[in-house]
């Protein structure tokens, strides 16, 4: 039994497909492409597949990770080309590999964001260096996150059309950090965020 990993993009209209629907959509993509996935045992068998680090609806990504198991040996080179034609608009499989690297080794996500309606220009670096906190709502209640733990190397630059481009690293897990939370300190009207790459604790590329 082999564990595989796909890297895929989620852009354009596909950013509005929720995490659960993305899972279901991917399962169907595999069935259309006739690529065998291992099913769980039991009363209600389901394909063994998982999309790690759920992405919020409305955010795009160039580096989503899907892990799955298959009992057949698959040709990794061919896999993206076999799957992509069966994807809805905005989903594209960019890479296939064996699932060797540990998911737990992902510590940072490189994110870019286009911010609209940003009225003040806060000193993000100073904010992240201080003990400032952000409130995150969870199922169990509210959680206070220290910015310095969740955000690294923020850079803000102005665009010609009046919007701002934000580039930063956010904590991927433990704690997971949704860039939308930055609205609390930045006070923008609207932002379009995009995951660009996944990084290890040392900000190295994660494979």
């Amino acid at each position, binding site marked *: 039994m082999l564990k595989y990993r796909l890297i895929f993009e989620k852009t354009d209209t596909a950013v509005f497909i929720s995490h659960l629907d993305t899972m*279901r959509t991917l399962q169907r993509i595999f069935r259309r492409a006739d690529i065998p996935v291992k099913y769980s045992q039991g009363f209600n068998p389901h394909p063994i597949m998982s999309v790690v680090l759920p992405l919020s609806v409305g955010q795009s990504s160039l580096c989503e990770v899907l892990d799955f198991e298959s009992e057949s040996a698959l040709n990794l080179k061919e896999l993206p080309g076999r799957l992509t034609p069966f994807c809805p608009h905005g989903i594209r499989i960019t890479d296939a590999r064996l699932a060797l690297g540990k998911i737990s080794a992902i510590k940072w996500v490189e994110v870019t964001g286009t911010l609209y309606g940003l009225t003040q220009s806060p000193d993000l670096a100073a904010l992240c260096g201080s003990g400032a906190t952000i409130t995150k709502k969870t199922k169990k209640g509210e959680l206070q996150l220290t910015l310095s733990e969740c955000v690294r190397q923020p850079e803000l630059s102005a665009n010609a059309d009046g919007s701002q481009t934000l580039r930063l690293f956010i904590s991927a897990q433990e704690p997971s950090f949704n860039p939308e939370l930055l609205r609390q300190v930045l006070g923008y009207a609207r932002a379009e965020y995009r995951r660009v790459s996944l990084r290890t604790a040392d900000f190295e590329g994660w494979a």
Partner: protein
Amino acid sequence: MNSPVFSYLDFIRRANFREQFAAFSKNPRRMLCHATLRRALFFCPIRAICQAHAKMPCKNGVNVVLFTHMIDTTILNEILPLVQKPARYTGGEYGETVKPGAALRVALCFPDLYEIGMSNLGCRILYGSGNAEDGIAVERVFAPDKDFREQMTKNGVPLYTLETKTPVSECDIAAFSLGYEMCFTTVLDMLHLAGLPLYSEQRDSLTPLVVGGGVCCYNPEPIADFFDLFIIGEGEEVNTEVYRLLERHRNAGGSKSAFLLEAAKIPGVYVPSRYETAYNANGTVAAISPRDDAPATVTKRIVRDFDSAYFPTASPVPSTEITHDRVSVELFRGCIHGCRFCQAGYAYRPLREKSAKTLIRQGKAAIAHSGCEELGLLSLSSSDYTELAALCDGLLPELSQKGASLSLPSLRVDRFSLELMRRALGLRKPGLTFAPEAGSQRLRDVINKKITEEDILNGLSSAFSGGWNTVKLYFMLGLPGETDEDVLAIAELTRKIYWTWKSAATDKKRPPRITVSTSFFVPKPHTAFQWAGQITPEEYMRRVSLLREELHIKNVVYNWHDAENSVIEALLARGDRRLSPVLERVWRDGGNLEGWSENFSFERWQNAMTDSGLELSFYTERQRGKDEILPWQTISIGVDASFLLKEAVRAETAATTPNCRESCSACGAAELCAENSVCPKITAGGAANA
């Protein structure tokens, strides 16, 4: 190709558009590929881009086929993150058909939410069959849910098609699928969101032509004033003729009235503005007079050769969960039974089957294309399909190899179907459904529903001993001639079902779950009960209480439908043209998506009726005279009114009528001349040969 015509916004921003365009494609020749074009346009900050099928030369000399007017998709990017389930409003699903250069654009409008509309097989058929035509693009439009509707209104986003984001007002046709009376106010809301005047006479230009189709059009009168024309019968048969005629008139710069005059000559097309209705002092219809040469009767069109008819095996696959999240094949159209209350049973006549060979091919193709986990076998009564065993044998091996399953709705429960379900579903044992419709044999004879108590108990006995334990039973209250004994017979039958479980069940520790549901009978046009009065909602509730007292049985749950919703359904089902202003008023008072009980308000309807000087009970409770002119009599479903009348008389004496396979009752549908139908062949003289 027409010369490019730009709207004022395009004109100002044309240069900007070119830059945006070039930035999105490294290789300019790839711009012709519409996936790339879509991507460019999705982010293109231009509200409206270019008139239909114009070609615009770019700097490098590549001709780019442009979209029609598009809405500003940057606004969509702003508002979509704010609403529930935004994937319903984006399009871009796998399998959608995008035809940017089509000469004729049809907005196929479904007056309910995406998850309902995408579950509708009829819409998939019309979408696929229209798009299979050269130069015609059929694009989907669904009603927005409340939150998205609010954002659209606030941000000035008009109702748009999912495929190319073309405003409905820019399409050539807005074609509405009308399957359920409670969708009428949603139709008005969608016309409003599209920025179109509600009434046909207020829309001067030829396009967009507002067209209606579907089962509600067998009495289109309540909505007649809003529509330019109705397609009576099966759309896959007629639509293309209407599309082509419109295209010719549009290209020639013809007027709407000239087009409608021509369109009324197409068999199956009903142009309501060409008919005038006069009323008697007592409110009944005095006369329906066709103007000029409009036909006195419009007879429904059907697909005559159903086996070779178009079927969509490659429809869009929603990227979000929908109500019936599966693909389907249609075993047959029509029904042999002729239950006297059932509009579908009469309206889809004659019965036409597809061969198992065709269905196996279509089923396999649909599963392979969609990647869905479930294939539904659809029909009004699947047990009547002559090749059911062969069909399942042909489908099951491939489905199980792909890990997909069969779903078999509307199957009669007997030994044969239980064995079939065991094979199709393995260990899964879904609930079994019975629709005896009436509790006593006498009343079942009245409605010509030929299921006996013995059938039900024998079927359930096999089911319970085979490990099934969930049963759902559907009944109607308020059927013509129903007495309290008939109501109580429902409880008696339920008790017998419980005893059957007690004696047959293998595992008595696992209690059965028996659900009894009653709905409020709504008399429908073109049925044997089209003259019948609906009982009052108070009387319905009394019968509900009567039954409820008797249904305090262990493991039995009783659900009953809301009375008020069914009263309005009855009003609209048999209404006349005087209801158009009532519908407008209800919509203006906030009526929209009223099929969803949380959006329904009876008071709103009562107020609108009172203010229009109309009596609700005149439409719902009144028993029509057998010689009365009925508002829908311009429309013929192929079944003769004299046959319906005969059935109504037989119902009074509880005399049953044989089903179409036992013997032909000469309803008239044979004259629609379907191939491979159950009907006797028609000779040249028009008389049916047995």
